[in-house]
């Protein structure tokens, strides 16, 4: 039996660029280049490793995003995923996380899967909740924030390093998992991989295909409302001294003036 792995990947504005907001207070995607969220590379990597361990497996990458989000899918395909699903519809613009999870859940049901692999958080919204929301919507166990993961005999096992403790977790498939950046470096696409990716199938879906009403999603369908977004005032230039033997003492004087010592 083929193990069907679906990987959710997000297309995000480059964190090293000048990120900001458009007039409608959604993320400005015109000013900054986009790319596959770096944290989703770890999800693709773990999916590929699980597939390599399985007798027979198929890895499908799924994204909800605008036209350019295809770049994120291509990157994942060039790393080695087999095929891709792109949910793209003008009415999705401005959807909040509850809405995004509704769209993704429908797309996953349509695609079919035994295991859903997500990143720990996107690098733009950084909410880190979408995998939990998918588990809730799909009525599946969540095995999330894993720094180690394995799939064997219909069970997914993993290690979760939480604030207070490290937990070993286990659940039967199908399940939703998310992996952290401690799960292992992601591979670079090879030249062969990049060429092969061009021929791999990318299925396009819109809201109609998923049976979702336009007014359930988008800015109007969101259950949250952004009232304002303001650039943080630039920090006033600090004092910078060069150590000439008394740098530690000068720093002590500064800390003392600020009442820290």
């Amino acid at each position, binding site marked *: 039996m083929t193990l069907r792995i679906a990987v959710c990947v997000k297309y995000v504005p480059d964190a090293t660029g000048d990120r900001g907001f458009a007039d409608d207070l959604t993320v400005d995607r015109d000013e900054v280049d986009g790319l596959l969220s770096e944290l989703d590379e770890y999800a693709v990597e773990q999916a590929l490793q699980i597939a390599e361990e399985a007798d027979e497996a198929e890895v499908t990458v799924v994204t909800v995003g605008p036209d350019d989000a295809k770049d994120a899918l291509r990157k994942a395909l060039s790393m080695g995923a087999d095929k891709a699903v792109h949910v793209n519809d003008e009415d999705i613009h401005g959807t909040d996380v509850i809405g995004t999870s509704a769209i993704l859940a429908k797309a996953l049901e349509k695609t079919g899967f035994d295991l859903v692999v997500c990143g720990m958080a996107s690098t733009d919204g950084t909410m880190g909740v979408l995998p939990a929301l998918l588990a809730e919507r799909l009525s599946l166990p969540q095995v999330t924030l894993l720094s180690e993961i394995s799939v064997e005999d219909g069970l997914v096992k993993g290690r979760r390093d939480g604030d207070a403790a490290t937990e070993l977790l286990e659940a039967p498939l199908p399940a939703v998992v998310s992996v952290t950046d401690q799960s292992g470096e992601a591979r670079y696409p090879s030249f062969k991989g990049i060429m092969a990716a061009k021929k791999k199938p990318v299925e396009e879906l819109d809201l109609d295909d998923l049976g979702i009403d336009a007014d359930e999603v988008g800015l109007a369908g969101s*259950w*949250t409302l*952004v009232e304002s977004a303001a650039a943080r005032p630039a920090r006033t230039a600090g004092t910078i001294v060069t*150590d000439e033997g*008394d740098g*530690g003492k000068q720093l*002590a004087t500064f800390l003392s003036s600020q009442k820290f010592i």
Partner: protein
Amino acid sequence: MAEILVLVDHADGAVRKPALELLTLARRIGEPTAVVLGAGEAAASIAATAGEYGAATVYVADGAEFAERLVVPKVDALTQIAKDKGVAAVLVPSSGEGKEVAARVALRLGSGLITDAVELEAGEEGPVATQSVFAASYQVKSRVSQGVPVITVKPNSAAPEAAPAAGTVENVTVAFTGNAAKVVSRTPRVSTGRPELTESAIVVSGGRGVGAAEGFEVVEKLADSLGAAVGASRAAVDAGWYPHSNQVGQTGKQVSPQLYIAAGISGAIQHRAGMQTSKTIVAVNKDAEAPIFDLVDYGVVGDLFEVLPQLTDEIGAR
């Protein structure tokens, strides 16, 4: 007054500081009530503390499920209480687990969700949250426009203020649902005796510039002289010099202390995402061009192995 439900985080039988901050923030938007889950015998003393910090009622639920299953039992409990009591908002600490619990509760309540608030105030149409986004380069104000607002709040978003209230304990029997992953084992983190990274007023962090695991000694000595927590950059963690649980940044802990001291850290965007909201920032770096100097209130261009020990000695002498 409208009931604001606060999930009270606890560890080793004690309330964690972020929960006290939430109770303090809850008073700005209504009347705080608290939920204490899976605390066993410690529940009574945790509930008493919640009462001291303003909880009129403390809902207590116990059961092996909270420890044996991931996330879902807490979702079951919180959703049940929120529905039964008709609360006006649900506040949860912004930990990895806290955010997941909050998200599923929001979905079950048919509510919008806001994560990682750093500020909360009453608004005409419900609580308004401030988020610090894009590596703290933007401040966003948002609110939940559908359902009972579910909001997670980052540690250090308010100073806990005592405000004694009834703290009446009400025991709750939770109807647990299914589909939760099994916790096969749990190994509590061994305490270093130093303050918690996310809760500490002062953090001293070391980066690749520290050069080796042994190099962290100068960082730890400085931290101890200030009563501070120790942080690390991902480069230092990846090199195996310091545990991942001490990583500061986008994929580590997000800290917002009164004072952050970065030693041998260049200031990559992902590191800044975890410390840029610190009130006062100090850096020690050999390279005058390091991007971290763009953020600092005070910077020393110099060798951390010279500057840190001298500073530690000065502090000891004062």
